[in-house]
C-alpha cells in the first residue's frame, strides 16, 4: 500500500512567539521549528503499517525550503521518500488553500495513494481543516482525531474519541485519517536513520509542476490582526480556615468567575 503522510513545520511550542504588528505575522527569527507533533503520530503510524503489511511511505509538506529539515526528520524516522510542495507564501491560515494544493498534488503526481495520513491539526494555526477538506476535494472517506487504526486489505477501522464515548468507524480505502495524541508513541530517529536520510534527495514540486495558477490558490482569508493573549492574572489565594475558605471559593466561582 502506498501511504502518504502530510506534514507541516511549526514553531516549537516552547519558543517565545513574537509578533510583527506591522505585517500581522509571527517573527520567525530566533524561533526553533519542529515537525508538528500530531503529524509525528501520523508518520509513526504510517511506518508501523508499512512494517506490518509492507508498502511505501511518502511524506509531503507544503512550505518554503525551510521545511526540508522536517522532511529529513521523517526520512530519518524511516519514510521512504519525501517531496516538498514549494510554497513561498507566508502563513495564510487558509485551510482550503492548502487543501487545494495537496489535493492537486495527489491527483497529478501521486494518484496511486492508498491511505492519506494527517495530524489532526497543526499547532499554532489550530484550524483542523485541512484533512477534511482534502478528503472532500478528493471524494474520499475520512475519519478524524483517530486514536487507533487497523487496516485489513482494502478496509480499515478507526477509533476516535468523542464526547464521553469512543466511536469505532469502518471505512474503505483509499481514505483520509487524521491522527490524535495516543495513536502511538513516535520513535526517535536513529543515527543510522539520519545517515540514510542524508543520502536521500528531497525533490521539489512547484505550483507550475502541479498546474496550479495564482488565482486557483489565492487566499480566501485575510488576517486582520494577530495579538498575544493577555498575560495570565496571578491566582487568588484565600487565607482562611478550610470551612470558610471553601465557602468563599464557591462564592467566587459562582459570582465572579461565573463558572457554576
Amino acid at each position, binding site marked *: 500500500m502506498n501511504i502518504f503522510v502530510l506534514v507541516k513545520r511549526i514553531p516549537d511550542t516552547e519558543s517565545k512567539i513574537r509578533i510583527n504588528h506591522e505585517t500581522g505575522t509571527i517573527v520567525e527569527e530566533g524561533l526553533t521549528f*519542529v515537525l508538528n507533533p500530531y503529524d509525528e503520530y501520523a508518520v509513526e503510524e504510517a511506518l508501523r503499517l508499512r512494517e506490518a503489511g509492507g508498502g511505501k511511505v511518502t511524506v509531503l509538506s507544503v512550505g518554503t525550503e525551510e521545511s526540508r*529539515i522536517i522532511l529529513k*526528520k521523517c526520512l530519518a524516522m524511516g519514510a521512504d521518500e519525501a517531496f516538498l510542495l514549494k510554497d513561498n507564501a507566508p502563513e495564510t491560515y487558509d485551510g482550503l488553500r492548502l487543501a487545494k494544493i495537496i489535493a492537486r498534488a495527489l491527483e497529478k503526481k501521486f494518484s496511486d495513494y492508498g491511505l492519506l495520513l494527517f495530524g489532526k491539526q497543526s499547532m499554532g494555526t489550530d484550524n483542523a481543516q485541512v484533512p477534511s477538506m482534502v478528503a472532500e476535494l478528493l471524494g474520499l472517506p475520512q475519519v478524524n482525531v483517530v486514536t487507533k487504526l487497523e487496516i485489513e486489505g482494502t478496509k480499515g477501522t478507526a477509533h476516535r474519541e468523542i464526547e464521553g464515548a469512543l466511536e469505532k468507524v469502518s471505512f474503505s480505502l483509499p481514505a483520509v485519517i487524521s491522527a490524535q495524541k495516543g495513536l502511538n508513541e513516535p520513535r526517535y*530517529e*536513529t*543515527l*543510522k536513520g*539520519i*545517515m540514510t536520510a*542524508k543520502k536521500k534527495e528531497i525533490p521539489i514540486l512547484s505550483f507550475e509542476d502541479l498546474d496550479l495558477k495564482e488565482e486557483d490558490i489565492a487566499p480566501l482569508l485575510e488576517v486582520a490582526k494577530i495579538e498575544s493573549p493577555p498575560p495570565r492574572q496571578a491566582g487568588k489565594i484565600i487565607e482562611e480556615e478550610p470551612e470558610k475558605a471553601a465557602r468563599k471559593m464557591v462564592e467566587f466561582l459562582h459570582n465572579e468567575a461565573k463558572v457554576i
Partner: protein
Amino acid sequence: MNFELTEDQKLLKAMVRDFAQKEIEPNVKILEDTHEFPREFLDKLGKLGILGMTIPSEYGGTKTDYISLILALEEIARASPSLAVIVSVHCSLFCYSIMKFGNKAQKKKYLPKAAKGEMLGAFSLTEPGAGSDAKNLKTKSIREGNFYILNGTKSWVSTGSEADASIIFASTEIKPGVKKLNAFIVEKNFPGLLASKIEEKMGLHSSLTAEYVLEDCQVPAENLLGEEGKGAAVAFHCLDGSRIGIAAQAVGLADKAIEEGVKYAQQREAFGRKISEFQAIQFMIADMSTQRDAARLLTYKAADLIDKGKPYAKESSMAKLFASEAANKIAYQALQIHGGYGYSKEFLIEQLYRDARAFSIYEGTSEIQRLVISRYLLEEC
C-alpha cells in the same frame, strides 16, 4: 567561513535534545540523589546509535563527523552532565582508542559490542600518586609468557565499577632503568582486577567513579593496545580529542544553567518588580550567554579541525580550558540569581553548580591546559 550546522547535524542535535528532554530529564534528580548509574538510558542511547559515533560501520558503528559527537554530548549534558561524561569516556576514550590504536582482532572483538552499548568502556590512567604527572605511573606491567601481569592501584576511574572493559595504563621497563607506559584492554572479569571503593564525589553522582586494585592481574598479551612502551602516545592522543567532549559537556551544562537562571529571574519578584528588571541581573545574563557562546565557538572550532584533518591539540586544550571555567562562572552566576533558593536542593542549579566543578579538573586540569597551550606558542615563536 560558515557558522551554520549542516542539515544532518541539526537533525541529530534536535533528536538528542528531544530524547534527553523527554526521557532523561524527568529522571535526573532521582538518579543523582540515589547515586544510581543510568544504565537504562545508556541502553536506549545504544539503540539510537549514539554510543557508536566514533566507530565506523564496518565494525558495527555509526561513525559521524566529530562535530556531531560534540553536539550529542552537549545535548546529553544539558539534561544530565553525569550521563554525558559516561558517554564521552565510552566514545572518545574507550572506543576511539581501540579504533585508532587497536589491531584488527581487537577491533573485531570489542568494537561491534561497544558500538551498540552492549559493552561499556572505561579509561584508567590516573593513580593515587599520579594525576597531572600521568607518565609517572606506579602500576607495573611485566610480561610472563602469553600474559602481562599487572600490579598496582588506579584511581578515579569513571564508570569503573560498571564497565565491561577498560583501557588501563601501566608502566613497563623497556630497558633496565628506562620506564615507559603500556596500554591494555582489560575485561572486567580478568583474574586479579577488582573494582572497589566508589568515590563519594561532590557532584556527577550518577557517574560512578571507582578505584581499581590490580593484584597479579592476568592480561593476555594480545590485549596490549598499541606497541610495547608506546602507551603514553595512546593516552595523550586520545585525551587530545576527548577534551573537546568535556568542553561540549561544559557548554551543555552552561546552557542549562542560563535557562534556569533566566526562568527564575523572570518569575521572582523583589522590591515590587521582577528581578529580571534589575540591571544587575540583566548584566549577569548578558555575561553568562556571551561566555557560553564563546565557549561553544571554541569547542566547535576544535571539533571542526578534527573533521578537516588538521592539528587540533592546542585548540582542544583552549576549548576545554575556556569552556570548563566558563561553565563554573555561569553556574555561579545562575545560582546567584536564585538567591537563597539556589543553595537549596530543590532547584536544579544547585546540582549543576556542583557538577560543573569537575570540568576544570578531569582530563587535564586548567593549569595543565595552560601549560599545553603556552608550550605551543613558545615553541612556535
